C-alpha cells in the first residue's frame, strides 16, 4: 500500500520542529500506511533510523539538510536519499537500510554498520567505517565513498565491505587519511589512490578477478544511485599495470600471532656480530654462544674427578717426621705380603722397634683416622715386628767417601741410608758405644736393652766403619774435612743448658743425671726435688728421680705451658709429680727455689732440664754465627758445601726428627756428590679427614684381630671397585698395569662430574675439582 507521499517541512510558524515531533509525524504516517517521505529538514537527528512498515514494504525518505545520524540504526527496507551533504554518523549502526548521500558525509560515517548499503557522493570524515561488522545471518554491510576518508578510518573493522574511490583525490598523500585500519580484524576495504601509514594489522593486496567483478557491478549500482554514471569509466581502470585500486584485508588470527620481526638469533648473528666483527668480547674470550644444560659431560662439566692414589699422605705418614707410610704397610699386610711390609719400614728408619715400637710418642697414632672413629691402630706393635728383620749388606758401588761425626740416631740414620745406597761411610763417636741418647740417656724402662742392641747390631751389619771413643778435635776435623768427600755433623746436644740464676751452681744438670743414672750411679736427692723445665726430657728426669727412690715430692716448673707430650705428663703425674707454670725462678738456695712472684718451693735437690746444646768445639768460627750456633741452609748444608749438619746439632727434637734429618740429608749428600741440584724436603699434603669414610667400618669391632683390616687406608686405594660399580654414567674403568699395578680412570665423555666416586670412596682417593 502506497499512500501519497508525505512532504514534511520542518519549519512551522517560523519554529523548527523538534526531532521528537518530526519522528512522531513520521511514525504516525507509517502507521497510516505512508511509505514515501519528502523531508525538508532543519538539522533534525536520526531521520530514517529504526523505522519499518507493518507490511514489510519499503519506506523511502528523500531528505534535504539532515542533522546527524541519518539512517542510524536503519532497518532493512528503508531507503534514504540525501540531497547534498550529511553531518556525522550517517548510517551509524546501519542494520539493513540503503543510504545515499549525494554530497559529503561527516565523521564516523557507517560506524558500526552491520548490514545495508551506504553510498556517499563526496568525502567522509574521520573514523568512518570504524567497527563495521558482518553478521552471518544478514548480508554484509557496504560503504561506498566516491571521495576520500578522514584519518583513523575503518578502525577495529570486523566485517563488511568498504569502497573508497578516491575520485578527484589523486593528489592526496592518502585517500584514507592517517593510520587507517588500526585494529581491523575482518572485512575488505577497496581503495583507489594513495595510501599512507596504514596499520600493521592489515595487508595491502592487488585485486583479483572476483574483486574486479564485484567492483564493476557495484560501481555501476553506486554511480547510478548517486546519479554520477559519467565517472564509471574513469573509476573502472583495472589494468594491472596502471590500476590505482588496492584491496585491504585484515590479517587472520593466525597471521596476527606470527612475529614478523627477525629472531634475536638472526639479529645477533647477521646484524650485531656482523657489524662488530664477532661478539663484543671476541678479542678477549672465545665463546661459541652454545647454551648448555645444567648437567653436562666432557669439557662443559662444572667439576671433574681424578683418581689420586697416594697423592696425599695418610695422617700416620704425614705426622711421622720420617714419613713412614704406615698405610702402605697395612695395605701390604692385607695383601698377605708380610715380609715386604715389615721390610718397608727399614727403608725409612733403622730403628722401627726401638723408636716406633718403644720410645717414640707415636704422632702417627695420635692422628690416625681410625682414632676419630674408635681407637687408633697399633703402630707400636707393627714397629716392634720389624725388630728381627735382617738386611743383606750391599756392596760399595761409589768412590766417594762420607764421614759422619756422631753416632746418635741422626748419624746412624744418615749412615744407614748412605751405606745401603752403596756409599762408603765412616763414623766418629766420642763415647765408647754408638747409639747416642738411645744408648746413653733413655731409661731402660722406656727402651729395652735387648731391642736396642738388636737394632744397633743390624746397623753394624751393613758395614759402616765406626770409630768409637774418638773425640773429634779441631785437628781431626780438618783431616776429616780433607779426606772425605762429604761430612755430616750429627753430634746431638750434649751440653745441658744452665740458666745463671743466683745459686745456679747448686743445680744438677738433667742430661748428666740421666746419663749417670743409666750407668747405675745413685744420687742422694733428698725428699723434695724441683725440676726446672717441663719438656719431654724433664719428664724422663722425673721418672728417673722416682726410680732413684726416697723421694716424696717432685715438682716440675716451667715458664710456659709444658712442652712435654700429654702422655709423658700424665705418666709423670701418675708417679706423683706436680707440674706448675708459669714459674719464673729468682734464686736457688740450700732451702729450695724462690720464684719471682714471691712463692717458695722447698727443695733438697734442684735439677735443671731445659734443653741441651751441641758442642761445636771442633769447628772453626767460620761455621758458626755470632751466638756460636752453626749456620746452615734449607738443605742442612753449612758454610762449607760438603759439610752438612743434622739432628739435635741444629735443633732439639724427637728421635724421629733426628732420623728424618738423617734420611733427608742422605738424599742431598748423594745429590751433592753427583753434582745435582739440592732440594728441600718435599712433603705431600695431608689427606683431608672428611674424605675418609668411617661409615664402612664397624665400631670397636674387637673380634677383628687383624689391625690391617681396621686400617682405613687413607688416601691409598684398596682396589674395592666401589667407584666403578656406583658411577651412574658407567664412566669409570679399571686399567691393569705392569707389576700388578692398576689405575682407575673416569671417561670425561661419559662423566657428569657428580662426584659419586669421590663421595663414596672409602679411602678418599677420588678427588672432585672444579674444571678450569
Amino acid at each position, binding site marked *: 500500500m502506497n499512500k501519497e507521499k508525505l512532504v514534511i517541512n520542518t519549519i512551522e510558524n517560523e519554529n523548527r520542529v523538534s526531532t521528537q515531533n518530526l519522528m512522531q509525524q513520521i511514525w504516525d504516517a507509517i502507521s497510516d500506511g505512508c511509505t514515501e517521505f519528502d523531508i525538508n529538514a532543519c538539522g533534525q537527528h536520526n531521520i530514517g533510523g529504526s523505522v519499518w512498515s507493518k507490511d514489510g514494504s519499503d519506506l523511502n525518505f528523500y531528505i534535504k539538510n539532515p542533522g546527524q545520524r541519518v539512517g542510524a540504526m536503519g532497518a532493512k527496507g528503508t531507503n534514504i536519499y540525501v540531497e547534498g551533504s550529511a553531518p556525522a554518523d550517517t548510517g551509524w549502526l546501519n542494520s539493513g537500510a540503503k543510504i545515499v548521500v549525494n554530497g559529503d558525509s561527516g565523521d564516523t560515517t557507517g560506524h558500526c554498520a552491520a548490514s545495508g548499503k551506504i553510498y556517499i557522493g563526496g568525502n567522509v570524515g574521520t573514523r568512518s567505517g570504524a567497527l563495521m561488522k558482518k553478521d552471518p545471518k544478514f548480508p554484509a554491510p557496504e560503504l561506498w565513498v566516491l571521495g576520500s576518508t578522514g584519518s583513523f578510518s575503518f578502525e577495529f573493522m570486523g566485517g563488511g565491505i568498504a569502497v573508497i574511490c578516491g575520485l578527484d583525490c589523486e593528489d592526496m598523500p592518502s585517500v584514507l587519511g592517517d593510520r587507517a585500519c588500526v585494529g581491523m580484524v575482518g572485512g575488505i576495504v577497496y581503495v583507489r589512490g594513495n595510501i599512507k601509514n596504514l596499520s600493521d594489522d592489515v595487508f595491502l593486496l592487488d585485486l583479483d578477478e572476483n574483486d574486479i567483478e564485484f567492483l564493476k557491478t557495484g560501481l555501476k549500482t553506486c554511480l547510478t544511485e548517486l546519479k554520477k554514471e559519467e565517472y564509471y569509466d574513469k573509476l573502472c581502470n583495472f589494468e594491472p599495470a596502471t590500476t590505482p585500486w588496492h584491496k585491504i584485508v585484515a590479517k587472520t588470527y593466525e597471521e596476527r600471532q606470527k612475529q614478523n620481526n627477525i629472531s*634475536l638469533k638472526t639479529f645477533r648473528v647477521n646484524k650485531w656480530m656482523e*657489524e662488530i666483527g664477532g661478539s*663484543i668480547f671476541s678479542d678477549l674470550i672465545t665463546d661459541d654462544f652454545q647454551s648448555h644444560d645444567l648437567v653436562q659431560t666432557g669439557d662443559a662439566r*662444572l667439576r671433574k674427578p681424578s683418581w689420586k692414589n697416594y697423592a696425599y699422605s695418610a695422617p700416620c705418614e704425614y705426622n711421622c717426621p720420617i714419613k713412614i707410610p704406615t698405610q702402605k704397610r697395612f695395605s701390604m699386610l692385607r695383601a698377605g705380603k708380610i715380609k715386604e711390609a715389615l721390610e718397608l719400614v727399614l727403608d725409612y728408619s733403622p730403628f722401627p722397634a726401638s723408636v716406633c715400637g718403644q720410645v717414640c710418642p707415636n704422632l702417627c697414632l695420635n692422628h690416625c683416622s681410625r682414632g676419630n672413629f674408635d681407637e687408633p691402630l697399633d703402630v707400636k706393635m707393627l714397629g716392634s715386628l720389624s725388630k728381627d728383620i735382617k738386611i743383606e749388606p750391599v756392596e760399595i758401588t761409589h768412590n766417594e767417601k762420607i764421614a759422619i761425626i756422631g753416632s746418635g740416631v741422626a748419624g746412624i740414620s744418615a749412615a744407614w741410608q748412605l751405606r745401603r745406597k752403596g756409599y762408603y761411610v765412616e763414623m766418629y763417636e766420642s763415647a765408647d758405644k754408638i747409639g747416642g741418647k738411645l744408648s746413653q740417656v733413655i731409661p731402660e724402662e722406656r727402651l729395652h736393652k735387648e731391642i736396642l742392641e738388636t737394632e744397633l747390631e743390624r746397623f753394624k751389619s751393613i758395614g759402616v766403619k765406626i770409630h768409637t771413643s774418638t773425640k773429634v778435635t779441631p785437628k781431626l776435623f780438618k783431616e776429616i774435612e780433607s779426606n772425605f768427600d762429604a761430612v755430616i755433623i750429627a753430634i746431638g746436644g750434649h751440653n745441658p743448658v744452665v740458666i745463671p740464676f743466683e745459686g745456679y751452681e747448686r743445680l744438677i744438670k738433667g742430661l748428666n743425671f740421666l746419663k749417670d743414672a743409666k750407668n747405675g750411679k745413685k744420687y742422694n736427692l733428698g725428699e723434695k726435688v724441683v725440676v726446672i723445665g717441663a719438656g719431654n726430657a724433664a719428664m724422663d728426669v722425673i721418672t728417673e728421680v722416682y726410680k732413684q727412690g726416697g723421694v716424696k715430692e717432685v715438682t716440675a716448673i716451667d715458664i710456659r705451658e709444658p712442652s712435654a707430650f700429654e702422655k709423658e705428663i700424665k705418666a709423670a703425674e701418675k708417679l706423683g709429680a706436680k707440674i706448675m707454670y708459669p714459674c719464673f725462678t729468682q734464686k736457688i738456695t740450700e732451702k729450695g727455689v724462690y720464684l719471682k712472684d714471691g712463692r717458695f718451693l722447698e727443695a733438697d735437690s734442684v735439677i735443671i732440664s731445659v734443653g741441651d746444646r751441641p758442642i761445636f768445639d771442633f769447628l772453626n768460627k767460620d761455621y758458626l754465627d755470632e751466638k756460636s750456633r752453626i749456620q746452615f741452609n734449607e738443605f742442612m748444608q753449612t758454610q762449607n758445601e760438603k759439610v752438612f749438619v743434622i739432628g739435635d746439632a741444629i735443633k732439639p727434637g724427637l728421635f724421629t726428627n733426628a732420623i728424618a734429618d738423617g734420611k733427608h740429608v742422605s738424599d742431598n749428600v748423594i745429590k751433592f756428590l753427583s753434582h745435582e741440584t739440592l732440594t728441600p724436603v718435599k712433603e705431600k699434603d695431608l689427606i683431608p679427614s672428611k674424605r675418609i669414610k668411617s661409615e664402612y667400618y664397624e665400631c670397636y669391632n674387637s673380634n677383628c684381630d687383624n689391625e690391617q683390616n681396621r686400617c682405613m687406608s687413607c688416601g691409598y686405594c684398596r682396589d674395592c671397585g666401589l667407584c666403578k660399580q656406583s658411577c651412574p654414567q658407567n664412566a669409570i674403568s679399571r686399567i691393569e698395569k705392569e707389576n700388578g699395578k692398576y689405575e682407575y680412570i673416569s671417561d670425561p665423555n661419559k662423566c657428569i662430574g*657428580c662426584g659419586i666416586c669421590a663421595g663414596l670412596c672409602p679411602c678418599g682417593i677420588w678427588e672432585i675439582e672444579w674444571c678450569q
Partner: protein
Amino acid sequence: MTKVNINSISKDDLPWIVEYDSEKCMLCGHCVAACSFDAIKVDVQKRKKVRAISNEEGFQIDEDQKAIPVIRQVIDANNFCRGCGICTKVCPNGAIKITRNRTEIFGTRYRAKTSQSVKRGGRSNLHTEGRTLDKIKVGRISQMTDPSLDALRHTFDLRTNLGRVVSPDNLNFDIENGELKEKPNQNLPVNTSIYPIMFSDMSIGALSPRMWEAIAIATAYLNEVKGIPIRMATGEGGIPDKLLKSKYLKYMILQIASGHFGWNRIINAMPYMQEDPAGILIKIGQGAKPGDGGLLMAEKNVKLIQEIRGVPKADLLSPPNHQGLYSIEESVQKMFLSMNCAFKFKVPVAIKVAASSTSVSVYNNLLRDPYNIVGGFFIDGLQGGTGAAHEISLNHTGHPIVSKLRDCYLAAVHQGKQGQIPIFAGGGIGMNGNLAADTFKMICLGANGVFIGKLILQIAGCVGNDFGKCNGCNTGRCPVGITTQNPKLMQRLDVDRVAENIVNYICATDIELKKLLAPVGNSTLPIGRSDALVCVDRNVANRLDIQYVC
C-alpha cells in the same frame, strides 16, 4: 664416632634446608653435578638394624649393617645452600627439594664464626618498607570528561628526554618565512629523545660477558627492530673495545664511577668511534648500598675483567666517593664539565646518586647549572639491587625512592624549573613484576623516566628473590650464568633467549604503559601529572601531595 660440637654451624642454622629422600633417589648424580654452590655432596650413611625374635629355636638375633650412599647437605659457613633450587630442577625423581629455614640465625652464626660481615647480592630482604607504589592507583580515568584512548591501536609517543633543557627565556628564535627558526650560535645544550625505561648500570664483572652482551643485543634490537629507543647504561667495569668502535655505541650510556675502570680504553677508542655514546652517567652512589663503593669479589675478577679494568686479581673495592670530589660545585665543575668537554658537548651528561635525605639540596644546587651542562639527575632508592654488597648496607641503609623523586620534582616546580634537568628514578622499580605500573606512577610523580637492573636479571632467568632465595651473585657461582665469570656456569645462559626475553618484556611493558596512558587520555608521557594518581594510604597521599581515596 662423629663428634658433634654445639658451637659449630649445624644444619638447623643454615638459611635453607635440603630435604632428601633416599628412597626416591636413584643416585644419578644430577643434583650434585649441577649445584654450583657446592652445597650438597655425595656421602655415605651407615645403617644398622638389629632384629630379634624368640621362636622354637630360642632367642634369635640377627643384624643387618651396611653403609649406603646418600646426598647430604654441606654444612659450612661459606659453601651453604642458597636455595637456588637447581637440584630440584634436575632431579628426575623428585627426591630432593629445598625449604627456607624460618630462623634467621645463620647471619648470627656466620658473624660469630668468621668475624666477617655478611655479604651477598640481590636487594633488601627485609620488606619492612612496604611498597609505596602499590598503594597508588591510576585513578583519574577519562570517563565522559574527555575521550580515553585505545591502548592497543592508537599511537602514542612514549619518549622522554635526556639532556639539559634550557628555560624558554634562554631560547632565541628568528621568524623566517613565517616559521620559527633557532638563532645560530646559541650553544644550546644537547638533548635526546629516549624511551623512559633505561637498562640500569650493571658492570661487566658483576655480570657475565654473556649476560652483559645479551642486554646490549636486546637494546640494539629494541631500537632497530622494534623502534623502541631504549638506552643501556653500561656500569663501570670497562667497555669492550669492539663495542666502543661500533655503531651500537649510540645506544650506550657510558658510566664513570669512583674506580674509573676502563676509562683509559674509552679515551683511546675515541678517535675510532663511529657514533657518540647516548650519554655519560657519573655514578656517585647506588641505592642498594648507598655510601659504599663497587665491590667485586676476587672470585669474579677473572682475566677478562683484570684486562678491561686494568687491575690485578684481588677483591675490587671501589672507593665510596670520587677521590677528587669534595662538594657539589666541584662535581659540576670537574665531572660535568670534563665529560661534556670529552665528548665535545654533544653527549648528555647525567649524574646518579643514591637517594638520601640530602638529595633535594643536591638537585636544587644542580638546577642552578649556569653552564647548561647537567643533563640528568638519577636517583636510586633503597630497593635497588646489586651484585655484591654488605648485607647491612642492603637491609639497613638507604632512602625509599618515591617520596625522594617527588620532593626533587616539586623542588624544581617550586622554582619553575621542572623538566630542565630530567630526573630518572630507580631502586625496586618493577620489583612486584609490573614495570609499566611503577614506571607510569613514577612518571606521574615527576620522573622523566626510570631505570631497572635486578628486574632485567629476573627476566633473564635469575632464580633469586627478595625472600632470601639465592642472592649469591657475589660468590661468582650464579647457577644460571648471569652473575658469574666462570665459563662453565656462564654457558648455562642462552644469549639469544635472554635477549629475546628482555625484548619481549619491554614490548609487553610498552603495551601496558599504553594501557595506563590510554585511560587517562594521554598520548604522551604524563610527566608530573600527579592528578592522574590517587592513593589509598592517607599518609602516603599527604606526603606525595596526591589525592587520598578510600
